[in-house]
């Protein structure tokens, strides 16, 4: 319950902080931190334009997409407190329910019959498929380390102590951060601010969405950032008491947003055909974590 509230609060600021960082890095003053939320509220009140080609799928897709992200948010715990839903193997549910949202965003894009949106949809399907193994190996290793299979118990029993645990924690944070970049179509994978539709992934998929539906999609994107941030926070806070944990939560989320802003300011996007390699590298990093965990549990004989 607590985690859900914290994620929602973070989501309000997260994208704003990224944008602000980017503007400061490029020497501009930039819009306020709350601008993304204001945009969404404005979108919610606007009328919409629908393509004649589209059907009810196109109208339903943003709704399902947001609902799937909200469900994923429900599963994420915060330190001692469980998520609203918590059961053994809930991280499998987390991945699959996000995939459900992806399925709908892809068919929503394909419903317009636009070749640009088809291109984005095709890339989204391929790249998200590559990203899944890293997440599962990471969570599987942590599950093995702690002997539990639910998010909350995994994170609560993750005691960082020895050098290897620090390495595992750092690598885990790296994998989750990169997954957040892929899931949210941010910089090294995708460039949300590019001027050419041919080189986009996520942005090109929502070309035809407008008004309320676009608002839903943007909201889902903001939430996704905060969700992955919360997962990273959980790697480190363990079960410390709330008066330290809550400030730590916001601090880490803030740092993440600044970090993402800096990456986007100083890095160029990868070439599209290099993306699969990059994403697969993530899987090997996850495998490193797996072997690290093996040494920790003493299975390397």
């Amino acid at each position, binding site marked *: 319950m607590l985690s859900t509230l914290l994620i929602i609060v973070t989501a309000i600021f997260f994208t704003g902080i990224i944008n602000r960082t980017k503007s400061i890095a490029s020497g501009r003053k930039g819009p306020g931190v709350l601008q993304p939320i204001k945009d969404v509220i404005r979108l919610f009140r*606007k*009328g*919409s*334009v629908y*393509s*004649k*080609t*589209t059907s009810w*799928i196109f109208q339903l897709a943003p*709704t*399902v997409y947001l609902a799937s992200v909200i*469900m994923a948010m*429900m*599963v994420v715990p915060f330190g001692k407190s469980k998520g609203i*839903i*918590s*059961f*053994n*193997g809930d991280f*499998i*549910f987390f991945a*699959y329910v996000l*995939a*459900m949202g*992806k*399925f709908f965003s*892809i*068919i929503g894009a*394909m*419903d*317009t*019959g*636009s*070749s640009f*949106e*088809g*291109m984005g*949809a*095709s*890339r989204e*399907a*391929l790249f*998200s498929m*590559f990203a*899944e*193994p890293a997440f599962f*190996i990471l969570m*599987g290793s942590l*599950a*093995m380390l702690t002997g539990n*299979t639910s998010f909350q118990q995994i994170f609560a029993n993750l005691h960082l102590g020895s050098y290897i645990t620090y390495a595992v924690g750092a690598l885990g944070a790296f994998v989750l951060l990169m997954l957040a970049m892929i899931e949210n179509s941010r910089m090294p994978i995708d460039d949300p601010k590019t001027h050419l539709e041919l080189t986009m992934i996520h942005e090109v998929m929502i*070309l035809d969405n407008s*008004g*309320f539906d676009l608002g*839903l999609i943007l909201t889902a994107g903001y939430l996704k950032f905060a969700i992955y941030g919360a997962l990273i926070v959980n790697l480190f806070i363990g079960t410390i008491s709330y008066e330290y944990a809550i400030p730590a939560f916001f601090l880490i989320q803030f740092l993440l947003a600044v970090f993402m802003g800096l990456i986007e300011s100083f890095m160029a996007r990868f070439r599209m*055909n290099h993306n*699969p390699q990059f994403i697969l590298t993530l899987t090997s990093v996850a495998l490193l974590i797996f072997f690290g965990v*093996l040494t920790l549990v003493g*299975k*390397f004989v």
Partner: protein
Amino acid sequence: MEVMLGIMPALLVLSQIFIFFVSSPKRGYFAYLPIVLNSILSSYIAVWVLLGNQAEFTLSGSYITGPIGIQIDALSAWFILVFNFTFLTGGFYGIFYMESYSDRVNNLLLHWLVFPVLHFSLLTIIILQNTLAFLVAWEVMAISAFVLVIFEGSKPVNLKAGLNYLIQSHVSVIFITIAVLWIYFRTSSFDFSAISTFTKNTNEAQTLLLFLMFFLGFALKAGFVPFHTWLPYAHPAAPSHVSGIMSGVLIKIGIYGILRMILLIHTNYLVLGYFILAISIITGVYGVMLAIIQHNLKRLLAYHSIENIGIIGIGIGVGCIGLGLNNNILITLGFAGALLHTLNHSLFKSLLFFTSGNVYSVTHTLNIESLGGLVKKMPHTSLLFLVAALAITGLPPFNGFVSEFLIYIGLFEWLSYAKLSTLIFGIIVVLALVLIGGFALICFTKAFSVVFLGEERNSHSNVHINEAPKASLVPLYLIASLIVAIGVFPKIFINVLLKPTSLFANPNFISSLSGTESIPVNLMSAISLSALMFIGFVVLIWGIRWLITREVKKTMHVTWGCGYVEPNKRMQYTASSFVKSYAKLFKMVLLIFKHEKPVEKVFPVTAQYESHPYDRIEHGLIDKPIRGFKSILGKLTFLQNGRLQLYILYGIVFIGLLLVVPVITEWIIRFFEVLKQI
């Protein structure tokens, strides 16, 4: 009970006779009648068994077979229910589907005669306890399925597909026969219990080899890679209701066989588990990887059947490892996952085939590149296809997620106390399952969006496209509602499943599970809750959206072409372009034949591009050896010269040779005796 079992064949024969006396359009109903009645009878027995009773009888049999045991245990009962449901829905759908072929009276007569026979033979296979009788029923099943597949045999492609199936299913029979004879010569009994007694009293190598023989036979039927090559031909060739039944039921008889043999054969289950896991992950990943590049809708679905057999196999493998480690949780999770996925796959795959049958009936093509935009013309079919596609991708809140979730939990349970070598193997299995899920997402977003969304891609086909008749949609909605029901309330189904699973695990353990606090059942209520919440959120957001947007202005416009104002239907993304980057990445696994005439020079003339996906395993394992055989046998073609006199001469020579065989052998023996004396 015995009387009911006796009635079933009688019903079948009676309806077969009646079919000749009714007019052609009504024959479908008369073929459906014995299916309904037999399903009611057998389902009644199955439910009775699942409630905890035992049904065992012995028929006197014949001199050759010995007494034929009939036993319906929980495993048989589960499969009976799965099969009956698919036949009930598929048969009903089939009556409507075949209406467009009403002018082919003779073909239809044969089709409707054989259709209930297939149902009956499948039911018989599940309950027989005598290997010889089992083989006979198996043969009846294989041949009746062949007849159903070649309904459109006038097209050479379909006939070839049917023959391919017939030959391969007889290769499967060979393996099973070898195993059966092996048992017979060792125990001189055809009874199933002989398999148990034989394997209890012999060494491990022999039991493993025996299992391998049975496994090869059943794997050919189930479509494990590399024995899958008949599937992608037979499924598209058959009429859609038959494809649905083949994919939903027929290949599951292979799964049944494997499960039955695991129950009967006592061997080293760990080795068995690793073997099944290894072959299953190859099956699952390879099946879905090839599914992605298919252009023919039914062929795509056929490759998906192979993938799902892989998932079921992973469940069985996990269960076997549980048997080897004597770990009841693992056994329960593995076998329950496999059995539930068997049901799930029969539901969503038959639904996918039936809906693609609807598409075929109106568009007369299965090439997805020329389809598109059907969602507006066939709303029901599209919705049903979407539900099935989401379920087969394993997404919550549908049924595919539940069974895959059980298997995942089993795998993580196994990993938590495995040793190093098994750990690495285990993580590969997890990876495979994850990849299968990701690939399935690509495949079904492609299939659904290219067939149903966007605009019609082939502008030449101006055929009038209508939704399928209302009545034929009834069974499809029935399947869809069951798909959702399993996804949302899995607990009910898991409770039923604990019965067949208890055959594998320690019964005391399972009975301790029946309380609500136990692990798998508890998980199911959590999944149920999350599924309901998810649906709740969709409805809630949709409601808010409706409330807010009903007042605001909505405009219709053409799709935004990024500044281009003359959009064209042919500019849409096609299935091939959707998977282009995928096909490029995995080109070492895939085999795609291309015919290309690229665009050249400043003023290009005609350019063309064609791609035909092919199966690398089929290329290496089937085509090449056959080419070798052909070149050897080709040298003997002078024998086949079409002259009747010579053929008669061959016969006489053959008979003469047979007659002199004993004489020649005697000579040889004498020759050796002479040699010995020297």
